[in-house]
């Protein structure tokens, strides 16, 4: 009887320890998709604001080259970062609200091609801005926008 009374607390401690360990491991796993989606949304908002700055700047009679350059640089940097914005497990699933389509993960080659196209056009935009040629900037901006649209059409749901 004494032995049983002695073993019960240690048995309970084991279970508590196990539960805490599991919780410690599981909690980040459960939080990860939502965190990834939040980071992705923040990244795209930052990118979108920079793209808006470029287009707003182009509509002005005398675009501010420094402002355009800053925005173009942000776009290029975001384009480089976007490869990290879609970790496996951050797609559509129960409890996670995301516009990202499952095709991003089921057709990674095609998605990578779309990301590469965007990244290339982002570099081209920065070059065009550096040239100071408004026509070239507008053309590069539209080419970049086309890659955005192409990706959205294929890989983003309408939610």
């Amino acid at each position, binding site marked *: 009887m004494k032995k049983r009374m002695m073993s019960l607390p240690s048995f309970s401690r084991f279970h508590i320890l196990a539960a805490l360990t599991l919780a410690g491991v599981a909690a980040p796993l459960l939080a990860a998709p939502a965190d990834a989606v939040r980071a992705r949304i923040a990244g795209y908002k930052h990118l979108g604001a920079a793209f808006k700055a470029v*287009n707003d700047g182009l509509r002005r009679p005398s675009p501010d080259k420094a402002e355009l350059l800053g925005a173009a640089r942000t776009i290029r940097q975001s384009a480089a970062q976007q490869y990290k914005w879609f970790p496996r497990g951050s797609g559509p699933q129960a409890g996670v609200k995301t*516009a990202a389509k499952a095709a991003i993960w089921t057709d990674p080659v095609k998605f990578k091609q779309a990301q590469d196209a965007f990244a290339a056009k982002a570099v081209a935009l920065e070059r065009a801005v550096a040239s100071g040629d408004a026509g070239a900037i507008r053309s590069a901006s*539209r*080419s970049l926008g*086309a890659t955005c*649209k192409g990706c959205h059409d294929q890989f983003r*749901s*309408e939610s």
Partner: protein
Amino acid sequence: MKSRIVLAACTGLVALGTLSIGLTGTADAADTAISKEEADGIIFERQNLMLQLEKDAELLGEIAAGIKPADQLAEVTRSIAESAAASKAAFEPRVPGGRSKPEVWSNWADYSQRLDAFERDTRQLAELGAKGDLAGVTGMLGSALPCKECHDVYREPKK
């Protein structure tokens, strides 16, 4: 009362904004001089303009309703006026796609007249906003932002 103001401000405008969200139509450039890439870029530019209008209109509706503080009144009305001013140029290229109906271009005289009025009225809205005239802005919401009227005629329903 608040909800009616928000409704008046936003019903059409939210609809206007949704024009820009998830438009999946192919950029089937009617103007053969425009490449598909450029056409997609033009459509994406239109989408972004409408998305910005949606966001701004939602915020303006909330300011008018007293849900949000009026300290952003000048900024948001200015942003609306800028987007409105850019809208005509964005639709000028004959590039069907997204949710724009072909009537945009086949009835261009009417459509562009509406956009001219949109630009003119939102400029006045921005002038009132710059003065901090919330009552004046609120009184103009219905007339300056007749988004639904336009969408009913020129926008494809959401699929």
